Structure formats: structure tokens, C-alpha cells
């Protein structure tokens, strides 16, 4: 049978397992320079496995073609704008990839002697100092592996400090506009979650907060600017309310790209916060990770930070493992070092003024998009926005077209969709975060696309509802996938 080719050979690439045939290989090992051993003797016959049934067998050429063809099925920042709200999809400088692969950094083993790891330790110390200056906080741990992991670390720090003061308390307050990781984190840290309804203008309701903060509340977890892209103007007052009752202010730093160089959480009452280096500091998302989620704290929390801590001893860096108040380790070794290198390279490239300029451009892009799209899309919260803007699908829904449909149609115009249906306080949300990475031409094209889609939603709703039309894969049946989960390949 001739396989039908549409556009390009790459369209028909099978799975690795379907490509395999016995005896093919893509590797060659050096000849063994020691005597071979009998596995049954070395391991015990019962501990030797049979062949790995189904494991791939392909040649080197087939391997590279396979993954290259797969790659062409992805959209990426390198293709164009990626306006996912809350995700801060900005350009990933390639120099960062290069320096992270510097041999003596990339091949450093976490247990090599401190005297032979001074370069790695200096990189971490410099990044800690830079992040402390950017956030206005007193100390930073680089151990957490991602944002949600940082949240957990941060809430455990709050718990530890409150425990030391006599009572860890029971509750964490979380606004209804928060990311899902916030309540999930609080639960894992052993806290009950109490939701706070946002005010009519979409910000923290300080009067409601005042009512809810009792001796039983450990902290408020807040994202600032919040998930509407709106700066929490009452943040200092909120911090005072919390602090008066001995509770803490935790900040989710997911939206730090709106603040770097402009305002510092440490200056507006935040006690503990995390950063997402894979958002604000441009380390690549890589299709879902890796990330890094450093946690920055005020001085009273420093004794509780995960061990070990970097410590200066004369002219050398060393690790301090003897920290009796520490919450313990949250991850083996010292953190996602390779990600830390990339973030530091980003900070070094920008410098202080450059970081501020990036923030200004990110906010300018979002404000500009809002200005241009306001005539076409419903804006449920008119407060001034910062780095992102949230519309609702109210006008288009009248024609049966929902935010998910508009998003899929955007693909046909060559853009990645914005964030769909979040935050939850906006019915049918379109959450758009352009970042500083986009120039005027790309933004104008995006705006034109959104306007055109708004018109289509009125004139030809079905066209939008059945989008995308130009992709290799059309809409995927997620219901079938969930009803009868097929989570691995099996031979026919």
C-alpha cells in the first residue's frame, strides 16, 4: 500500500515502535577494556531480566528524522507570539543554552568536593543576591524545582515560623481568582483553604479580609498583580491587617514580569514569595518543564530555609548543613542548577536598567492590546491593567461562540491561543499576556487577527466553532481519550 503523503513526508511519521525492526541500532559503545562478566553470576540468575519487550530498535538516521518530524507538529515561541496569560512566554535567549552547557558546569557532580565546585556555588550565590535585590527580600533559597514546589516550600516556612511562635494555625486564605496550585499547595502543607471573593473591581476585598483574618489564619496567598493583570492597590493595607493578627502575606510571583524594576514585594509587605524562573527570567518551558521556583523571604524566615545554605568562609563558598530550625530538604541536592545558570545569564544580559525596560515593554504591549481590542471584546473589569489583560466572550457567546472556539480560530491566524477560561471569576475568560518579546508588527497582526475573529463570530459562527482548519491535526476527541484511557502503545 502506498502511504498517502499530504504536504510533506513528515505528516505520516509513525510511532517509534511502529518504525522498529530487529537488529537496527543507532549506537556503538567503545570496546570493553576490562573482562566481561556473566550477569547471572554477578547479579544472581533471578535478578537478570529478559529482553525489554517492545523497546525501540531504529537506526541513527531514522531516530533523528523521527524527532525532527515530530518537532514540526509543535507551535513554539520561535514561530511567533504565544500570548498565554499567566505563563509569560517570552523569548529564550540561545546564549543561555550555550553557557548552561559549559563543560565544567554541566558535568559538575553535586557531591564533588566544595573546593572543586566554587564556580557553581558562586553562580548560585550571585543569583540569590540578584533575586533578593529584585524582590526586595532578605534571603533566597534556590532549592525548589518549580513554582508550585516553591509555593509548598514557602507555606512550610510560614508554618515553621508560626509553629515556633507557638501555633501553626489552621487556615490559609486564597482569593477566588488564584491559580489552582495555591489551594492545592495549602492542602498539601496541611492547611484548610478558605476562599475570599474578589471585590466588584476584581481586586482583593479588604473589608472581607478584615472579617476573615482571625487567630486561626496562617497566611493569605495572593498573586500580585492578580490574575486579571490588575495591581492589588490595597496590598499594603492587606499586609497590615494580616500582620496585626500575626498572620503572614504570601505572594505568588507568577506575575513578577509586571513588577521587576518598578515595585518590590519586599517593599509592600510580603513576607514570603516564590518566583518562576521559567516565566519572568526566560528559562525555556521545553513543552512543560523544567522550571525553577526560588523562594524569597524576609529575615525572620531565614533560619527555616531548606538546608544546606551557601555560606561564605573566608575566600571560599561552603555549605552549612547544621541548621536546626530548617524545614528540611524539599529536593535532593541544591536546586535545578542548569535552570539557575540560564536565569542568571538573562539577568546579566539585561542588567538593572534593562530588566526595568523589559517590564515597561511588557506592560505597554498589554495596555496597547487592551486599547485596540476593547471595541470588539467585553472587558469585565475596567481597572488599569499591567502585563496582561482579561476579556470575556460575552459578546461572541450570543452567537454561540465561546472563548475556547475563539482561541482555536486564533491558531488558523498563526498564533498560539491565549489562556482559556481562566481566571475563574471571569465567565468565558480570554486571558492575554503578550510579554515584552513582541514588537509592534507582531502585536498589530495579533490585534488584526482578534478583530477579524470577532467579525467572523458574528458573520459565520460555525467557521469559528469548528476551527482550527489549517492544522495537521484537527480538534482532538478529549472525551474519548478520557473515557477509555490509552496511555501507552501496545502491539496490535
Amino acid at each position, binding site marked *: 500500500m502506498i502511504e498517502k503523503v499530504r504536504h510533506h513526508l513528515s505528516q505520516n511519521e509513525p510511532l517509534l515502535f511502529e518504525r522498529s525492526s530487529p537488529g537496527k541500532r543507532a549506537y556503538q559503545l567503545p570496546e570493553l577494556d576490562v573482562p566481561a562478566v556473566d550477569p547471572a553470576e554477578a547479579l544472581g540468575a533471578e535478578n537478570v531480566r529478559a529482553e525489554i519487550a517492545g523497546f525501540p530498535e531504529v537506526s541513527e538516521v531514522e531516530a533523528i528524522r523521527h524527532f525532527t518530524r515530530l518537532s514540526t507538529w509543535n507551535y513554539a515561541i520561535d514561530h511567533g507570539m504565544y500570548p498565554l496569560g499567566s505563563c509569560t512566554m517570552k523569548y529564550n535567549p540561545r546564549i543561555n543554552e550555550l553557557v548552561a552547557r559549559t563543560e565544567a558546569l554541566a558535568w559538575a557532580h553535586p557531591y564533588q568536593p566544595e573546593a572543586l565546585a566554587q564556580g557553581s556555588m558562586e553562580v548560585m550565590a550571585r543569583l540569590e543576591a540578584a533575586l533578593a535585590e529584585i524582590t526586595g527580600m532578605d534571603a533566597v533559597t534556590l532549592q525548589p524545582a518549580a513554582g508550585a514546589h516553591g509555593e509548598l516550600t514557602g507555606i512550610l516556612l510560614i508554618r515553621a515560623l508560626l509553629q515556633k511562635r507557638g501555633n501553626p494555625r489552621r487556615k490559609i486564605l486564597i482569593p477566588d481568582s488564584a491559580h489552582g496550585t495555591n489551594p492545592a499547595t495549602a492542602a498539601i502543607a496541611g492547611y484548610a483553604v478558605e476562599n475570599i471573593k474578589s471585590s466588584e473591581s476584581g481586586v482583593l476585598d479588604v473589608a472581607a479580609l478584615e472579617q476573615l483574618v482571625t487567630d486561626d489564619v496562617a497566611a493569605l496567598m495572593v498573586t500580585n498583580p492578580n490574575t486579571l493583570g490588575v495591581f492589588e492597590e490595597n496590598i499594603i493595607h492587606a499586609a497590615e491587617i494580616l500582620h496585626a493578627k500575626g498572620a503572614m502575606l504570601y505572594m505568588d510571583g507568577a506575575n513578577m514580569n509586571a513588577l521587576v524594576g518598578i515595585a518590590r514585594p519586599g517593599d509592600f509587605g510580603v513576607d514570603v514569595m516564590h518566583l518562576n524562573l521559567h516565566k519572568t527570567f526566560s528559562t525555556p518551558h521545553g513543552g512543560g518543564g523544567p522550571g525553577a521556583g526560588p523562594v524569597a523571604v524576609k529575615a525572620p524566615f531565614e533560619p527555616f530555609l531548606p538546608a544546606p545554605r551557601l555560606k561564605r568562609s573566608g575566600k571560599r563558598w561552603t555549605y552549612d548543613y547544621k541548621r536546626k530550625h530548617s524545614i528540611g530538604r524539599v529536593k535532593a541536592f541544591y536546586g535545578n542548577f542548569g535552570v539557575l545558570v540560564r536565569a542568571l545569564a538573562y539577568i546579566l544580559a539585561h542588567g538593572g536598567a534593562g530588566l526595568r525596560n523589559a517590564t515597561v515593554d511588557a506592560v505597554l504591549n498589554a495596555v496597547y492590546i487592551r486599547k485596540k481590542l476593547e471595541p470588539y471584546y467585553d472587558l469585565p473589569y475596567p481597572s488599569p491593567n499591567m502585563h496582561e489583560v482579561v476579556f470575556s466572550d460575552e459578546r461572541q457567546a450570543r452567537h454561540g461562540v465561546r472563548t475556547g472556539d475563539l482561541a482555536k480560530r486564533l491558531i488558523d491566524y498563526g498564533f498560539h491561543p491565549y489562556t482559556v477560561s481562566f481566571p475563574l471569576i471571569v465567565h468565558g475568560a480570554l486571558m492575554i499576556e503578550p510579554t515584552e518579546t513582541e514588537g509592534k508588527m507582531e502585536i498589530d497582526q495579533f490585534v488584526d487577527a482578534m478583530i477579524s475573529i470577532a467579525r467572523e463570530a458574528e458573520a459565520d459562527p460555525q467557521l469559528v466553532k469548528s476551527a482550527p482548519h489549517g492544522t495537521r491535526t484537527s480538534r482532538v476527541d478529549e472525551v474519548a481519550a*478520557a473515557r477509555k484511557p490509552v496511555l501507552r502503545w501496545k502491539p496490535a
Partner: protein
Amino acid sequence: MRYLPKSNSERRAMLEACGVAHADELFAHLPEAVRLGRPLALDAGISEYEIVQYFRDRAAENANGYASFLGAGVYRHYRPVLVDTVVSRGEFLTSYTPYQAEISQGTLTAIFEFQTMLCQLTGMDVANASMYDGSTAVPEAAMMAVRATGKGRVVIARSVHPEYREVLHTYARHQGMPVAEFGYVPEAGTIDLEDLDRKLDPLTAAVIIQSPNFFGIVDQVKTAAEMAHRRGALLVVVFTEAVSMGIVEPPVDADIVAGELQSFAISPSYGGPYAGILAVKEKLIRQMPGRLVGQSIDTHGKRAFCLTLATREQHIRREKATSNICTNQALIALMATVFMTVYGKEGLRELAAQNLAKAHYLVSKVAPRFCGKFFNEFVARVDGPEDANKALLKKKIIGGVPLGRFYPELADGMLLCATEMNTRAEMDAVAEVLA
């Protein structure tokens, strides 16, 4: 700034369109008290050339040109060139989590292949799309067992990586999840079954062991499974050396396998980023944290993949989610996927056999501390391991991990690892110092 694409005239035009005279007005709504009234106290931005130089200078302060016998959870294996070739493609490197299936089939397909290969390797039914690393996969496995069994406590072998155990204790402390540790047999280095029997009670949700364990020894998975299951607990088997699965019988009797894939072409990179994995028996799918990719069809009836069973996750279930995990290690998992593809069925076996041969050559020249069967690392009995390491450094060799820091009773123990990257000459040099 070279990463900012706008010209000044474009910036002015955009500000004008926004009805703003100066960029600072974009922040006029921020209360005065929160605004930073000064520039950040950071150095001015530098050029690409200077950045390269900065990191070269830092690298020069690290070990350069040393042979190494360090293992203990992080292994030096050759990284095929294809790995970086693939993960450097912008389509993989600079894409987001594949929520939009129509334009993410590349990542989704690769993850589906990853999940499949992990099932083939571990003998489990389902593997997720990755966790942060092996150490954090352990508490996630423990919490999963607690949900699945409705019981509250876990017991973990002291022969599980000490830092993994520390992470488990950190997570468990605040959840009312008591953790008990059980010992190893002093002669063999395998789990102490009597001690396990003493600590395993009907309230135990999970028994956690590692194999090959922290001492490199292939441990008693089958027996541990029988003991756990008899008491209604699940068995969690941890691994840190994925290459072992090329030759060592997989932990098919486990209910949950929680491991670290660093050995699969992931640079040691001073401790991360790596890729953890959770693989489970079918019955535990709905208790599993982390992302899963499933097969389906598109509207044209063509095979297509998408993220599935998302209702387990934080963005839907919020405080009732199986875990708070969101970001995972997709790009690192892709490295492992390419590695497994390059080596394939025969190659992974041959690679494992080489590791086995190297470590057994080295052990023949020194005094092993335990008699248990091991894969590519083992504990040598060394008088004063710290001093021995100093002597080795003079030969440009980084020796093994002195174990006294983790196990006071093994102060004369040095954990040595030999992989395909260690030459016979290096091993002979080590033997000379340690003998």
C-alpha cells in the same frame, strides 16, 4: 537591550495609541508607597561575549579534567550527540505545556512514547509524563499510597537515598503522615526483613525500598512485595540508576515505581534539572499525580494525542487535587526519550553489561563492605575515606562518596561507582591508593 524588539519610534507610536505621553504613566495607578524610587542595584547589562566569558571563568573554578567515581544518585554516562540536537530544536525547547493539542502533537507524541518506554522498562502498566526528580517522586508516591489504601503511615528503608528520605520527611511532617525507617543487613547491605516485619503494621500504607539501593545492591523486591501486600500496604520501589534496568529484573512486583532518569543522557549539572518518574499498576491510575498523555482521534478520524485525566490535577480540582504539581520536566524527559531511542533494546543491555563489568573489575581490586549483589556501584571499606580522596585528587581523580556523613556506622565506607566512562587505567590508579 537586544532582547527587546521595539525601536524607540515604535514605542512612541504605541504609547501614543494608548493615550500615554510617557512610559512611566503606565504605572501611574500604582500607589506611590509601593513604587521603587531608584534603579535596581544590579550591574549594567553585558554582551553575549562577556556572558560566555563570565561562565567560562566560573567553570574554571570547578573541577576540570578529573576522572570521577562519584555516583550516589547522579551518574556519569555518555550523552549521545543526538540528544542535544533534538532538544535544541526551538519547536521543543520554546513551546509550552501541550494544552492545545492541535499544535502540540510533537510534544504529545514524544511523551506518549516516553510513557510507553517507561512501562516497558519498569514492568508497570502506566507511567506519567514526569515528575520534578527522583527525590520528590518519593513523597508523591507515599501520598498516592495513602490515598489509595486509606491508611496513614509509611515505612522506608534506610538504604533509600538519604536525601530522598530527607525530602519525604519534609513533606510528611506537616501532613500527619508518620514515617518509620527500617534498617539493612550489616553483612549483605540488603533490607533487613525482620526489622521491616517489626515496623510494618496494619496501618501502613506503603513500604518504600530502593533497588539497586543506595549501596548499589540489587534488593529483595519480591519478598518486600509479599510482606507489604500481606499487611494490605503497597510496595513502592525507588530507583536512581536507570541504566540498571537494561540488565536487572524490573520491579514488577511493586505497585508504584518512583525513579530518577538522570542516567539517561541528563547532564549531572550540579544536581538538576533531572526527570523523575512515577509508574504504577493499572488500579492506581486515578490516584496518580502529574500529567498524562492519552491516545485519541481528531475530527478526521486520524490518530492524535492529548493530555487526559486532567481532573486529577490542581488546575481543576484545586485543594482536592492529587498533588500541587504543575510544571514537570518535559524537555528533560525528551532527553531520556532520545537516549532510550538511540540505545534501544540491544544497546541498553550492552550499556548495562559494560557498567556491570567495570564495577566488578574495580571491586576485585578493593575491599567490598557488603556481600550483596550489586550493579555499577558498591561500598568499599577504606580506612579514612576523606584522606584517601585527598590522595586521589592529587592524581586528578575524584574518589567515591564517604558514607560517614549519611551513615555514622559506615565511617569506613566509600561509595564507588564505575560506568562506561571510567577506564581501566583510572580504576587501576584508584586501586593503588585504596589498596
